[in-house]
């Protein structure tokens, strides 16, 4: 259920965001996008969330989401901050709701695939 909500959310986001894929969804692009997504989730929703979890779920969800947004902000600029903060907190909710980082990882992979289709 949590995964379905995640896929639906990022699917709606992709439809709303519009535009066309910059490149065809080649195997290399898909593999790298998926690798990046899993790596990010291993870091933010496994390590960072796990480190903050003793302080309570709100701190873990908010803290990992904030760091997620901050990292993207430095790469893509200030205007991605609201979007990536919302995405980071949402992925943190998935981690909290399921107790596992693999669900946000799967959601993140699908979100990254949506970028190239």
């Amino acid at each position, binding site marked *: 259920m949590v995964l379905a909500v995640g896929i639906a959310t990022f699917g709606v*986001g992709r439809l709303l965001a*519009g535009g*066309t894929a910059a490149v065809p969804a080649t195997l290399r692009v898909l593999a790298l996008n998926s690798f990046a*997504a899993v790596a990010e989730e291993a870091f933010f929703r496994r390590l960072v969330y796990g480190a903050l979890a003793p302080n309570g779920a709100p701190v873990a969800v908010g803290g990992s989401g904030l760091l997620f947004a901050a990292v993207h902000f430095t790469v893509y600029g*200030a205007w991605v901050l609201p979007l990536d903060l*919302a995405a980071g907190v949402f992925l943190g909710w998935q981690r909290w709701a399921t107790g596992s980082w693999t669900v946000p990882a799967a959601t993140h992979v699908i979100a990254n695939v949506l970028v190239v289709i």
Partner: protein
Amino acid sequence: VAALPSPPARRCRLGVGLALASLYVAAVAGTLVAVQRPVTPLFDGVQPPPPYRWVDPPVDAAGTNVKPVSNRAEVRFEGGASVLSALTSDDGQIILNLPAGAFPTEPDSTGVMVTFTPLDPAGLGRTPAPLRPEGNAYRVETTYRPSGGAAPLAAAGNIVVTMPEAAETILYSSDGRAWERVPSQELGDSRTLGASFTRAGYYLGGIDSPQRRMVGTGASNGTGGVLLAVVTTAAIALLLGFGAPVVRRLRRRTA
């Protein structure tokens, strides 16, 4: 074994999730309104740069070129100061980041209109030797709204210029005739340079190569470096994500 949450708890968790999902969709919509161009759901992963959009394309890019057009974006005044803004040209090849208070307010003005006009550098003044123009030139105008008077900057922002090929520097001209070098730095890849934005005028990338190195759209340039950076960063993230808990567990076991 952890106990399964009760149905009310499950409903509560789902409610929180749906609220956060709505927040995310609202953030996408808000970002779309703010930047006025398509956005991607998470801003990460690997996307080779899109083809450069030329005002006057070289022969090999003419077939697929999408000519950029002039566009305008407004910087609003709120609470007696201009707001923090990120503005882009129609083609996304120029980005302006302006801090809050970048423009002084003027009586009866609601904000500052920033106009981006892509131009063929061949129609402008010659660049100082040995530099040659790289890509389009852009005229950036800042005028008070609604008076139309020139709006000077009170605080520096920064300008990001994307070029079809690696360039040496950003060039500036106040009138489109006499160019000067602007201290510039690479941002992410060699096709993208950033500089301080302190005044309106003409901006252009300059390269000192005797011949155009680029063939095609430049889409492949810098991709190898980007891929390497993404893979390295992702590998470090994976290592940290899995390594730290494993080390902790081993320490606990040996204690």
